[in-house]
């Protein structure tokens, strides 16, 4: 469903991505993990054409991503960022419906109701502005906005990074349920191995613009590909132990 081949990116002297391949099959949930600056956020942005790679090829559902096609691809892919990325001048409802009203699609109200149930957003939060919502509510609204046009693919970049542990745990459960119920193909960026292991069926670990190892959590624990993997796992241990 998501296919990256030999994708590279450099900023001046600094190489953000060495030639990188990545595949996410339909219905699969892949988590990109690694320390800050490892290239995971750059990689996920190339899928939406938010960053144009210097080389290589990106396709989503068979469609090549380039300057001309980016807008069309973005409308078929949901994207959630830390703290929701909500527009402060619009209410929760207006944020979620923004793209649908721009495209003048039908059934906006029905879809809003569906999404509120799906993400468990209280109805009274609908007409509040982002500044009047809690962090968890903002994240739920951000998720609703991403799912409004019923995308088959969902990208999440550190979606829960700004939340306290209790809210975070509740949202992790809700996210997992949403992935299944909506039948989504998901690419998720996180720096938390516990979250990656809980939400994803495959984990991809990156370091310095390269993929170091990919597989299930057990592979990382039992068969680290290089010393860095073991070091990374050790640093994550308290969370993974839960």
């Amino acid at each position: 469903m998501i296919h990256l081949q030999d994708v590279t990116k450099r900023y001046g002297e600094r190489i953000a991505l060495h030639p990188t391949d990545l595949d996410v099959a339909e219905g699969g949930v892949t988590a990109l993990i690694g320390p800050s600056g490892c290239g995971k956020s750059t990689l996920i942005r190339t899928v939406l054409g938010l960053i144009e790679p210097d080389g290589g090829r990106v396709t989503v559902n068979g469609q090549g991503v380039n300057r001309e096609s980016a807008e069309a691809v973005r409308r078929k892919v949901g994207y959630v960022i830390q703290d929701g990325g909500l527009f402060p001048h619009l209410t929760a409802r207006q944020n979620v419906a923004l793209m649908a009203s721009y495209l003048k699609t039908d059934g906006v109200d029905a879809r809003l109701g569906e999404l509120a149930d799906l993400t468990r957003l209280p109805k009274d939060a609908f007409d509040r502005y982002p500044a009047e919502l809690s962090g968890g509510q903002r994240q739920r609204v951000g998720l609703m906005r991403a799912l409004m046009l019923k995308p088959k693919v969902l990208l999440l970049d550190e979606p829960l990074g700004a939340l306290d542990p209790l809210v975070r745990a509740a949202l992790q459960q809700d996210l997992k349920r949403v992935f299944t119920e909506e039948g989504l193909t998901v690419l998720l960026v996180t720096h938390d191995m516990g979250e990656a292991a809980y939400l994803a069926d495959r984990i991809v670990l990156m370091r310095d613009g390269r993929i170091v190892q990919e597989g299930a959590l057990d592979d990382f624990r039992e068969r680290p590909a290089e010393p860095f993997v073991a070091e990374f796992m050790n640093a994550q241990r308290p969370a993974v132990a839960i």
Partner: protein
Amino acid sequence: MRRWLVLLLILLSLPLRAQTVTVGSKKFTESYVLGEIARKVLTDAGFKVEHKQGIGATGIVWTALTKGDIGAYPEYTGTISEEILKKPGLDVATMAAELAKQGVGMSKDLGFNDGYGIAMSASEAKRLGIATISDLVKHPELKAGISHEYLARKDGWTPLAAKYGLTMRPDGVEHAIAYAALSAGKIDLTDCYTTDAEIKKYDLTVLKDDRGFFPLYRATFLYRLDLPKKAVAALDALGGTIDEKTMIALNAEANRTKDYGAAAALYFKGRGQNVQVHHDTLTEQIAPRLLEHLALVGVSLLAAVLVGIPLGTLAARPGPSSGFILSFTGLIQTIPSLALFGLLVPLAFFGIGLRTAIFALFLYSLLPIVRNTAAGLRAIPPALRESAEALGLPAAARLRLVEFPIALPTILAGVKTSAVINVGTATIAALIGAGGLGQLIQSGLSLNDNETILKGAVPAAILALIVQGAFDLLERSVVSKGLRT
């Protein structure tokens, strides 16, 4: 966009092109009074007359005449040869021939000489034993306050000081204020017109020009040769009817009544004509000026918004055009208003009047709008920009639906700043005959009359407050509640 703007400006200036004779006058009492006299005789001759009062200095009024913005204005022979033709010492016949080459005629000599002179307090002059300009050489400690025009003129302070060997360094002051400064002892010397009523009022002595520096300044009307014959005849009929004593009395009447029309009426009364002086009520004085002021501010601000917001949007993008736009609009702001008028008035499209004033105000209004638009757009967090992009909104829709609404409070603050500054700046429009509340201020300054100054200044200040309040209300109604919590 620019084409529409130009069209709008042309439409606005259309009423000025109506079939009227426009009389101009310079920014001092006598010129105002002579302008009013011309207004009356031309009206009697059957013309619709507009008197554009107190238009800047010689250069601006002369340009206005040659460009056809005005049809006639009072001038002095000394100024014509020294300043306009730049050929000192011409006789009247040669002067008239030279003027005719530029399409300008000269009416019959009105009957008086209003020369420049150097004046000081009579008692001080007596105490120090000063009777002639040569005597000043022995008193370099005296403080000279000289009018701006006289400081700059070819027949002005510099050649005068050179001829007499004067060493004091003069300060530039407004002519009407110089008399008040002289009587208060703030300055010791000033340039004067020999027919100024203040000479008698403040008991001043005009120092003898013992080396014969000052040329004759015989008063006359300059008019365009394409003016109807009947109008020229009416101006010529004024020839020889005003002697020096009469002119001093008329200037004194203007200073006493604070009303140039009343001074003109005194002239006609002396000629056996009883002219009913119409005294404008306070509303009649202020209301038309206020309307002009609103038009100046409204049109220039609207144009600045229409041009400034797109420019600011361009300037918000990284790249070389951004720096260029911001420094260019900043640069405009540093041009003094009089200098900008001086640059614009000779241009074919501009001249004196509404168009030039609106264009200048438009330029001055740009900076806060451009700067705030750019700043407001740049302040949008990158994550929000990216969110809008990731939704698949095209660039234009991102601007309209996301970026402008978020930057709106900052953009509106810029427009508000422009509007409030514009209300104040628009008072200088009077210097080029575009009216507005500044006309009352200028006319009050020429008469040294605080009451008239306040009639212009107080409404301008109130207007600025109202504009500020209106923008606060506008902000409350158009800025999203989400941006105010």
